[in-house]
């Protein structure tokens, strides 16, 4: 769409996603999973991608790495990684980006590991291929990384099979494997959703520690607002295949501008606040086969007017702050009144 809606390129930008549209062909019609998504990730930065199911979080990761299923396609837009548009690369070129430059960590650690191969086989192959070292050296790197992520007795355990590890340990193996390739960007798609809270704390702790040690950027995709609050510098809030608000993490939590972000934050049960009734958002997340016109959130929004049936641009409202809503002034006036 209009180029004004994209972020101006920051000198430090590592990944610049500009106005991408990803569509899926299905039996019941075309699913517009991403509908003009723009955001950026800078060097050494942890960025959170937040939203509810079906908002396009995971599709964004898959579009960036070009690993969409057969029926999906990025139909428009650009994905600049260190100045190169990934969408123009050939498949062999793309293979040198995946893993080595941009690593991906999935939600379910069991299905990301081959159950019939030992951890050694799964790590050594990848490391020797991408880093151009022989198997012996690759094994050394693997053991070193396994130790770094806190796997005890790594020298022996490298010969174990995935089923011999617990869920948290498997996720550590995957982190070790991903980071052994020394990528610049780690995309973590719900990395701790399948884990218990105490294990989640361990895994997030490792990701943060490794990030600081290796100086890599993190794109953390999650629906858990607590996880983003504690682990990111900036947030992009997704709704219905679009970015509706983005900004520094603290600003988003302390001073949300978009009606959806506000409603989302109010609907989580708070630890600190009292009981009372939870704020709810009427209706449910939009179907992207036949999405609402204009602002995707308007059917559920209390600020809805005729104007909202047109698409609101993602407008800059401050340093690193962007909001896609026609009624920001009214929303803010209301917030001031209530506080």
């Amino acid at each position: 769409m209009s180029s004004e809606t994209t972020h101006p390129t920051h000198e430090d930008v590592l990944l610049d996603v500009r106005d991408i549209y990803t569509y899926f062909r299905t039996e019941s019609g075309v699913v517009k999973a991403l509908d003009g998504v723009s955001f950026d990730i800078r060097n050494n930065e942890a960025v959170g991608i937040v939203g509810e199911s079906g908002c396009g979080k995971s599709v964004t990761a898959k579009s960036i790495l070009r690993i969409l299923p057969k029926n999906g396609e990025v139909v428009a837009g650009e994905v600049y990684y260190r100045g190169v548009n990934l969408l123009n690369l050939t498949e062999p070129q793309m293979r040198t980006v995946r893993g080595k430059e941009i690593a991906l960590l999935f939600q379910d650690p069991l299905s990301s590991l081959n159950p019939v191969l030992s951890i050694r086989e799964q790590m050594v192959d990848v490391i020797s291929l991408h880093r151009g070292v022989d198997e012996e050296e690759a094994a050394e790197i693997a053991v070193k990384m396994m130790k770094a992520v806190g796997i005890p007795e790594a020298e022996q355990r490298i010969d174990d099979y995935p089923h011999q590890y617990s869920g948290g340990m498997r996720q550590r193996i995957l982190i070790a494997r991903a980071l052994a390739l020394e990528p610049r960007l780690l995309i973590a798609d719900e990395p701790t959703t399948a884990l218990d809270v105490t294990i989640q704390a361990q895994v997030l702790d490792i990701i943060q520690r490794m990030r600081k040690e290796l100086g890599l950027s993190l794109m953390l995709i999650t629906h858990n607002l607590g996880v983003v609050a504690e682990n990111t510098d900036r947030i992009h809030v997704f709704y219905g295949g679009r970015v509706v608000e983005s900004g520094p993490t603290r600003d988003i939590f302390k001073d949300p501008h978009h009606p959806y972000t506000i409603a989302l934050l109010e609907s989580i049960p708070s630890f600190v606040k009292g009981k009372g009734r939870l704020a709810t958002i009427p209706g449910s997340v939009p179907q992207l086969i036949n999405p609402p016109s204009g602002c995707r959130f308007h059917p559920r929004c209390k600020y809805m007017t005729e104007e909202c049936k047109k698409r609101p641009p993602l407008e800059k409202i401050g340093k690193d702050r962007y909001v896609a809503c026609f009624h920001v002034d009214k929303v803010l006036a209301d917030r001031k009144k209530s506080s």
Partner: protein
Amino acid sequence: MASVELSSSEQTEVEIFPGSPKDRTDAILEVRNLRKYFPIESKSILFSKVVGQIKAVDGIDLQIFKGEILGLVGESGCGKSTLSKTIIGLEKPTTGQVLYRDKDIHHPKSKTESMEVKRNIQMVFQDPYNSLNPRRLVRDTLKEPLIIHKLAPGREEEVVIDMLKKVGLEDYHALRYPHEFSGGQRQRIGLARALIMKPEIIIADEPVSALDVSVQASILNLMQDLQQEFNVSIIFIAHDLSVVKHVSNRVAVMYLGRIVEIGPTDMVFDRPAHPYTVSLLSAIPFPDPDIKKKRIILEGDVPSPVNLPEGCRFAPRCYKAQELCHKEEPMLQEIRPNLWAACHYPEDEKVIFFDVVEEEA
């Protein structure tokens, strides 16, 4: 277990039930020294022999009072779901009893007693997609239990419509199939199906964990409203501690088949006594960047319920463990009024601080 014998005396006030508040005498459900072991069999052509036991539930005493919401929390594999299945009668206990108003639910004396118990303990499941029959109209799903239990002879449809409205659906929804509903609406149907029996106890096993945050809020509100309206007791099982804190009056924390801490919600969350509860609470990420807290990161994983550690089950991961903890298993004891914990060295101070750090952006 229950070192204080539950004597046959009529004076219930005299009984001290581990984990129960002393001022309440209106218990409607009692779990006594419940154990549920699953045998691990090694099979050969001729013989199969039991080589071990998975101790999913390993000695639980618990009372549920009239009209309370008891939150049951713990990590995966701690036995929450096995406990709930045994309470509702889907699993037979290895030892111990579950008593609903003094009737043993696993050994009913008559058909009528069995029917009465079943009617009064209902369940709401986690997955609203798989817990409704896809080939049945919502009306038929809701009507069947009424017919079986002869609760509203001749007026079943009326009762069904009534209940649908109570859970925030419309009368025309009765003539639809489950696939026509969203996840949140299906969970409303699940609630309607449980409540239509006018039960005294509902066991809700992770009722909101499959839902999006915005939908989760409306289901939690609805559950609280319905709880008030029907004065039903709810055992609310969840792994999301902020949800449990929001809805429940009392909380029981489970670890490896045992209750390690139980007490009024505010006490458990504000000043937990058991180190496991402390670490569990400190592990929750807060949706507020200004709150910084001391985080206790636990070492290792939950041990396997086959080879339980000797002494306290939590000792291998505990930041406070001493020699005694590895030798002797602690029993539930009252640490502060109504707050019970099974620990040799309970925390007596407030150990988790939720500091609001004022930071200049």
